């Protein structure tokens, strides 16, 4: 959450939690986060919201949030986090303090102690069984449907906030402004690669297509490293994992690391000049063409 509202990833995590069985409680740790706690209480499937509020929790510092989770951990058999930057930051800290293993990035709940998770950049799926009493899990949000954001009526309970560990502090942030749909939740994503050649060309060619489709913009690592797109647009093993209805890859060769982030998309379209590009091996529809002519033509057709 961002103190005012609940992030979409929480909704998918609630679905995974419901699949583990038992009552689902949501911990909202933040500062002046009453609105977020209220929003959490309305999620369908949530039985209780625990709200901890303190200045030290405002920015989600791992040391403080982990301590807050540990303060209530003894009541639970499963503790789930979304596999977002903040979930991945905090969860292992909690697991180590409890002396249990963590199961990262699960895509399926097989049984209360057995889960599926992708390894090797998604080139293999491991089924793992936890031997620990408490299961600490991060949830790949694209592996689970989102729970309904309304319809629930959980009671909000206030918990005592743990003290600030005092070892870390928040200095500032640069949040990329965007009025487009959030990348990880978008139904359509148009993604550009190195072939675009420059930031100007990226904006000029890809933005109209995204506008026309109401899509989020994504990018390959090559495009991000070259400065054509900001790094929070990166799709892949080390960037965001997405699974939209439609993924349009323009000028992206399709390295293993990129495919890891998008190959669960429902329909994949590849536009590439190179007939040998690996992206064509996962594309439902491949168009062998120069993206500088094909993408504007597609915009026009739409």
């Amino acid at each position, binding site marked *: 959450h961002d103190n005012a509202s609940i992030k979409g990833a929480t909704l998918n995590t609630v679905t995974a939690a419901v699949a583990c069985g038992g009552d689902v409680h949501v911990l909202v740790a933040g500062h002046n986060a009453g609105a977020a706690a209220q929003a959490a209480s309305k999620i369908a499937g949530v039985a209780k919201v625990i709200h901890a509020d303190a200045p030290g929790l405002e920015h989600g510092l791992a040391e403080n949030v982990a301590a807050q989770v540990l303060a209530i951990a003894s009541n639970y058999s499963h503790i789930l986090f979304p596999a977002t930057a903040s979930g991945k930051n905090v969860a292992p800290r909690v697991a180590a303090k409890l002396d249990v293993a963590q199961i990262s990035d699960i895509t399926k709940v097989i049984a209360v102690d057995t889960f599926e998770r992708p390894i090797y950049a998604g080139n293999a799926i491991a089924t793992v069984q936890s031997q620990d009493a408490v299961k600490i899990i991060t949830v790949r949000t694209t592996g689970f449907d989102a729970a309904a954001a309304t319809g629930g009526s959980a009671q909000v309970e206030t918990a005592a906030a743990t003290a600030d560990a005092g070892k870390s502090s928040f200095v500032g942030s640069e949040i990329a402004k965007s009025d487009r749909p959030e990348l990880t939740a978008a139904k359509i994503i148009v993604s550009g690669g190195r072939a675009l050649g420059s930031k100007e060309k990226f904006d000029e060619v890809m933005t109209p297509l995204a506008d026309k489709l109401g899509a989020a913009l994504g990018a390959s690592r090559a495009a991000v490293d070259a400065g054509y797109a900001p790094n929070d647009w990166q799709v892949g093993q080390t960037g965001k994992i997405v699974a939209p209805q439609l993924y349009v890859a323009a000028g992206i060769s399709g390295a293993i690391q990129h495919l890891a982030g998008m190959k669960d998309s429902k329909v994949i379209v590849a536009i590439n000049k190179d007939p040998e590009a690996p992206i064509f091996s996962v594309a439902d*529809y491949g168009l062998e063409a120069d993206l500088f002519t094909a993408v504007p033509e597609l915009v026009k057709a739409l």
Partner: protein
Amino acid sequence: MKILVPVKRVVDKDIKVRVKSDGTGVDIANVKMSMNPFDEIAVEEAVRLKEKGAVTEVIAVSCGDAKCQETLRTAMAIGADRGILVESDAELQPLAIAKLLKALVDKEQPGLIFLGKQAIDSDDNQVGQMLAALTDLPQATFASKVEVADGKATVTREVDSGLETLSITLPAVVTADLRLNEPRYVTLPNIMKAKKKQLDTFKPEDLGVDVAPRLKTLKVSEPPKRGAGVKVADVAALFEKLKNEAKVI
């Protein structure tokens, strides 16, 4: 100040692994192995801090079988001063590795522990955070910029919505993201020099750590295959398919 840099030997990033037909794992026999790319970035950053004079010694550590020595030699060729191998043929899971590293942190008392954000084989993204928890040190994960001064580190992190900057007191644990730096190529003279650098070997028992795995892998399978796609002749055909066949626009 010393820096400890844990490095992992993994299947090379450009290799597409195959799942074994009996479902017990992926076939990594006779496959090219390399240093985990994120660890290379961590070693590079540690060496740069040393070159700037902020650090006196860079120690590379690897946990695994005897072949991890090669990975440590690579780290030393980049510029690490010495290496430590924790040798074990057992399957080492993140919690066990974090415990081994904690024992070494207690022993060496580094001012900074610099890891990669995740290993590209298990894709866990846990060890750095777990080590920070076990040693009770602050953490800065997914770092794209690190500055060290006056007993503190200022770290810019890559988060979902952009960038975030934290200040953490040293000693601390930092995990490297891709954009932290561009690791240097190792040169032949440095590879030769690295062969002469000190490399100590311990066993998990020497460090008093039980490395028994907590997660049991029941099976490893191929991801579902995508149905074969089609190539379309032109934009008009693509538009038609998307609209009428896939019905996504």
